[in-house]
């Protein structure tokens, strides 16, 4: 697997597309600024949301049990899964009991995290992703590159070509309106025919045992309301205590994510429809480990709005696929090492630590600080690439030996050409400054 830096090199090879990606996501960030600043209480809302989440995490066990009891009383079957494998097996069992070979699924980053689609396909079950962006990347056999805008790495020409290939739209037609209509017709057939629907969960309310799913397209509802069986998959951190808390989170979520006032649909599933089976799968998959670590506990407050993606100068100019994880961007870079340190050792370094992510986060997660904590932990665990640890040791040695520092400085001033080679990663895409003839010390001694 390519590291973030290596994959980014491929991404930025197309300079025009990189600029487009950068500017488009910045526009989303600007929309977020515009709608949030209209609310004088914006900062108070962020603080409130952060406190609700802190309170919930401090009492997570109780709230999970309260939610379970209420949901069961509402007629919903509650399942618990310790890890991805258990989660996938539970979902498969429910589908197998129904005897279905095909199902519709709306956006759920959790199922991406568990690689549910691959698992179900291996069991002979076809999964139709119904979010437009997710359907596009599914046709292309790619992963979503952004948790809110899954196909943001693609241009309309790419989508036109993909739809020509898979949906038979006329070759060369790249009109977003036309292509969306083609997807609407194609997916409507699946909605009407599917007996099983899988959705994610945005919020689960301990007080009432209901769960809320937010979409703009209406795909989660089209699937869930027409299917005989609805399976909702959620990480255990999605719990919030009270229904009234939703007011705070729904005011923050869409404004932070896309600059909308609220998502088009915020659906509250309280009880199954008459004659319907409704299941909730609660999954840990490393979350309890994260909860137990004071340094990283806060990352469990995330509501997956992706504001940190849109503002991140590294994400905007390296693309989501460079992060090789279902959740990319700054938040993904602190979630991923919790699950597998070795495979994700590069991600906490894919940041300038500028702190913009923490500034826009609607639940006030200290994202950039956690990135910095991970860097220290990963270096201490001896997992950093050899070049990085040798380089750091060399620099520490030089900086702590004045004589060697001076010698090194004078050598580099004389042979500054050694910096202008591809061996120096900093030289790539940058012009190096011209080295002065003498150092300040040399100049001072001559006076």
């Amino acid at each position, binding site marked *: 697997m390519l590291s973030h830096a290596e994959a980014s090199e491929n991404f930025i090879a197309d300079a025009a597309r990189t600029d487009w990606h950068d500017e488009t996501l910045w526009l989303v960030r600007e929309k977020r600024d515009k709608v949030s600043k209209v609310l004088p209480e914006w900062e108070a809302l962020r603080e409130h949301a952060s406190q609700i989440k802190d309170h919930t995490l401090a009492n997570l066990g109780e709230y999970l049990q309260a939610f379970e009891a209420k949901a069961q009383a509402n007629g919903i079957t509650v399942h618990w899964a310790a890890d991805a494998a258990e989660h996938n097996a539970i979902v498969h069992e429910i589908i197998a009991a129904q005897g279905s070979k095909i199902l519709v699924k709306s956006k759920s980053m959790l199922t991406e995290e568990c690689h549910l689609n691959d698992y179900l396909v291996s069991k002979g079950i076809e999964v139709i992703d119904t979010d437009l962006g997710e359907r596009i990347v599914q046709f292309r056999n790619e992963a979503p590159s952004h948790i809110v805008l899954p196909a*943001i790495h693609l241009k309309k020409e790419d989508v036109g070509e993909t739809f020509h290939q898979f949906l038979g739209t006329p070759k060369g037609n790249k009109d977003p309106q036309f292509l*969306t209509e083609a997807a609407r017709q194609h*997916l409507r057939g699946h909605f009407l025919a599917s007996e099983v629907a899988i959705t994610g969960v945005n919020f689960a309310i301990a007080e009432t045992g209901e769960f809320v799913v937010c979409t703009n*397209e209406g795909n989660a509802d*089209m699937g869930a*309301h027409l299917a005989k069986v609805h399976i909702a998959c959620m990480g255990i951190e999605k719990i919030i205590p*009270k*229904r009234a808390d939703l007011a705070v989170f729904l005011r923050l979520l869409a404004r932070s994510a896309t600059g909308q006032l609220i998502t088009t649909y915020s659906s509250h599933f309280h009880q199954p429809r008459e004659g319907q089976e409704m299941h909730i799968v609660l999954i840990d998959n490393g979350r*309890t480990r994260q909860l137990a670590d004071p340094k990283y506990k806060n990352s469990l407050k995330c509501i997956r709005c992706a504001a940190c993606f849109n503002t991140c100068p590294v994400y905007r100019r390296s693309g989501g696929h460079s992060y090789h994880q279902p959740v990319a961007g700054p938040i993904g870079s602190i979630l991923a090492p919790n699950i597998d340190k070795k495979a994700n050792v590069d991600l906490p370094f894919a940041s300038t630590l500028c702190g913009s992510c923490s500034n826009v986060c609607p639940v006030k997660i200290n994202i950039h600080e956690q990135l910095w904590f991970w860097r220290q932990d990963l270096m201490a665990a001896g997992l950093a690439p050899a070049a990085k640890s040798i380089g750091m040791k060399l620099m520490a040695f030089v900086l702590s030996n004045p004589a060697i520092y001076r010698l090194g400085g004078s050598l580099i001033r004389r042979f500054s050409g050694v910096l202008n080679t591809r061996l120096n990663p900093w030289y790539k895409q940058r012009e190096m400054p011209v080295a002065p003839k003498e150092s300040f010390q040399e100049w001072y001694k001559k006076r």
Partner: protein
Amino acid sequence: MSARELILGKIEPLAEVKHPGAFQGASGEFDFRASLAVVGARVVTPSELEEIFPGRRRYDKTLDGLSLAEVEVLEIDGEFGVAENGAIWLTEESLPHRVAPFICQHLVINVKKIVPHMHAAYEELGKVKSSFGLFLSGPSKTADIEQSLVIGAHGARSLTVVIHA
């Protein structure tokens, strides 16, 4: 050990942090009509509605999920509107079927009551428990292709609101 016990066993109680309680200090200066315009809905008078959709179907309990797909224009009653974001609260009890507001091509909602913001909205619906309910704000939309806004993704292609207040 079951996954349930395993997970609950791993959760150590943390230092107590108080729930901050109800949110205070929400601004109240919101215009429902302006928000509806932002989210792509149109507001009409009852007589304008007659002209635009003379052949619309009013809520009808006899419609089931599949025949609803054939309904071109569906008219239903919302519980109340939210001024800050143009959302309208709908409940299963006021719908022919849960899928109704999604599967019809064009949706018309009557609104008789407006609350200023989401905090007031949850206060309003705190008293009533519905088996299913939703905040619906504008017509179905997507911007998944190059961030170009397209109205009419999977749900209703248009939302028309009649305010009786």
